[in-house]
């Protein structure tokens, strides 16, 4: 009997090892595969390099892209490699903090990273970014004018918009009449069918907006008040979940405080789901292409950014991942139906009414983290 147990443990252990190692093998195969193609294509790349820049500005053979997971279609990278002969190595992260930590460690060397708006501001303040040479990025003119001047980077000296999105309300039209606002989350009729973003910053920003308090510079009293209001919402809540598309699709959640992208996914599967930015405002965020000061391939990075701004390429990005595209050229290529999707492209007056996230001092962030947890514990 004991031998049998031992044997089973050995089998379990072996399977675990196999699982780990096959993962590794997969990644190595990928990289070696793409290296092969890059060497075949180098002939073409030299032509492209010399025609576009002077002698000092030659394309590197490799570009290290550090981007969010599920945010860059492989097709786009393959096409760039075919056209320019530059192999793009795509590594992923799952939070701004993770990206900052890895960059800060000094052991990595990325040519492009894609931070969210207020993180760009923090990186500019910390001298972490290189100024962009706009002569190499003529396609910037494709970006809609509204996104040219942004508080965190006036004049787009360091950053180029990538994709953007919003946080608002996804709702089930068969249960909810009219267009809901944040205040409707508190409606007792919807008890047990409400979901809220499981993130201190996001959920407290929502409550602050509902209370008409400043979302980007709350005082301690504001936050205490928001905490009390969130505690009142707690009995209504089905789940605190930042990806509630499954509950929306199944019909369990009727009204969700969530990302536009999540709503977009739910809308594809369940025709009863709709999305709106609430009358209180809602929140906007935008991810941006920047070049960290550790990059040694600035020119190549700029060529790649310019490539991403081509209308066809940019459309590939938002086709693969249903966020909002700030590229007018790409928008012009879309069908009327795609452009009128309220999750991806809310009406202009709603966008104007919504707020952008700004960076907060660490003390405020820590206070928000604590208050948010206290709501759940008490």
């Amino acid at each position, binding site marked *: 009997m004991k031998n049998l147990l031992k044997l089973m443990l050995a089998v379990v252990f072996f*399977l675990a090892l196999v699982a780990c190692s096959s993962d590794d093998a997969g990644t190595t195969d990928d990289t070696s595969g793409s290296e092969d193609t890059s060497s075949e294509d180098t002939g073409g790349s030299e032509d492209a390099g010399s025609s576009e820049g002077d002698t000092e500005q030659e394309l590197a053979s490799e570009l290290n892209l550090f981007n969010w997971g599920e945010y860059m279609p492989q097709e786009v990278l393959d096409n760039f490699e075919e056209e320019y002969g530059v192999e793009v190595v795509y590594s992923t992260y799952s*939070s701004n*903090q993770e990206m*900052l930590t890895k960059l800060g460690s000094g052991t990595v060397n990325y040519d492009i990273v894609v931070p969210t708006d207020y993180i760009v501001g923090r990186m500019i303040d910390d001298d972490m970014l290189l100024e962009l040479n706009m002569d190499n990025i003529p396609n910037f003119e494709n970006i809609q004018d509204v996104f040219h001047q942004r508080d965190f980077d006036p004049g787009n000296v360091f950053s180029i918009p990538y994709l953007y999105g919003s946080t608002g309300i996804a709702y089930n039209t068969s249960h909810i009449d009219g267009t809901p606002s944040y205040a409707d989350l508190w409606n007792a009729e919807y008890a047990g069918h409400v979901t809220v973003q499981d993130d201190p910053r996001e959920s407290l920003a929502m409550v602050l907006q509902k209370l008409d308090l400043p979302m980007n510079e709350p005082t301690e009293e504001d936050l205490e008040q928001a905490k009390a209001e969130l505690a009142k919402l707690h009995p209504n809540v*089905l789940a605190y979940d930042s990806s509630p598309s499954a509950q929306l699709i199944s*019909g369990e959640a009727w009204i969700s405080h969530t990302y536009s992208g999540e709503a977009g996914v739910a809308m594809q599967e369940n025709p009863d789901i709709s999305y709106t930015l609430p009358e209180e405002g809602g929140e906007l965020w935008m991810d941006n292409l920047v070049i960290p000061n550790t990059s040694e391939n600035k020119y190549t990075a700029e060529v790649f950014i310019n490539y991403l701004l081509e209308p066809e390429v940019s459309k590939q990005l938002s086709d693969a991942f249903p966020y909002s595209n700030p590229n007018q050229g790409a928008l012009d290529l879309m069908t009327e139906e795609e452009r009128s999707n309220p999750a991806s492209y809310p009406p202009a007056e709603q966008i104007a009414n919504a707020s952008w996230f700004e960076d907060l001092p*660490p003390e405020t962030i820590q206070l928000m983290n604590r208050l948010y947890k*206290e709501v759940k514990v*008490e």
Partner: protein
Amino acid sequence: MIKNIRLAYSMLSPSLLWLLLFLVVPIVMVTVISFTTSEGYGGIIYEFSTHAYETAFLSSMYLKVIWNSIVWAFSATVICLLLAYPFAYFIAHAGKWKNLLILLVMIPFWTNLLVRLYAWIILLNGEGVINHFLQNIGLISEPLTLMYTPYAVILGMVYGFLPFMILPIYSSIEQLDKTYLEAAEDLGANPVKTFFTVTIPLTLPGILAGFIITFVPAVSVFVVTDLLTGSKLVMVGNVIRDAFLIEMNWQLGSALSILLMILVLLSVFIFMKFTSSKDKKFLI
């Protein structure tokens, strides 16, 4: 049999090295980090500070979370014990089916707990299999709230950790010398009395081992609370995970880890003292 102590150590060295690398070093690192200063946005400044511990103690919330976690984990462990003991007893007396039954207990281990919890979501949710079945046979008209309640965490923990309880109890029942039972019978004890005065005390080492290896992982779960309670229940595992990964407050995460380790060691120690006061050998 090993005469040479050096030989003994050299044979142990791979496991000693393992313990040093993956137990001692991390604990030292966590302890050091818990006393450093936070840069604010996640960085660590190596200056002595007790700020993390002050935060942990000044806000009663963190101690309350740890206490709640111990209570939830203890309840789940007791339920595991009540389910596992008869089950293990049954398997140990199942004759030729023994190996098959033990295999069935172990098979779920071959799938990741996360995947198995998703299966529970499909079963439990308002539009899920169980609710549909009950509604179709007309037992209920409105779907029952089976998920997204704090109690769902008990279900998840009992389901996830039951094998940890069954296996050690099974092996101690299996090794039980039947002649003790015969002696008790010969001396006039009925089966119930034999069970409580002979079987249970003799299988206590298995019960204790099962209790500890169920309770310790249960107290620090976080995926179960995330998935089955809709993040409405916060256990200490969630707080520590969030401190490291979301809030980038490694100092607080480390301080809470240390506090949790101390409290778990203490509660295990109290538990063993309490259950084995009569017979020291059960401490093993």
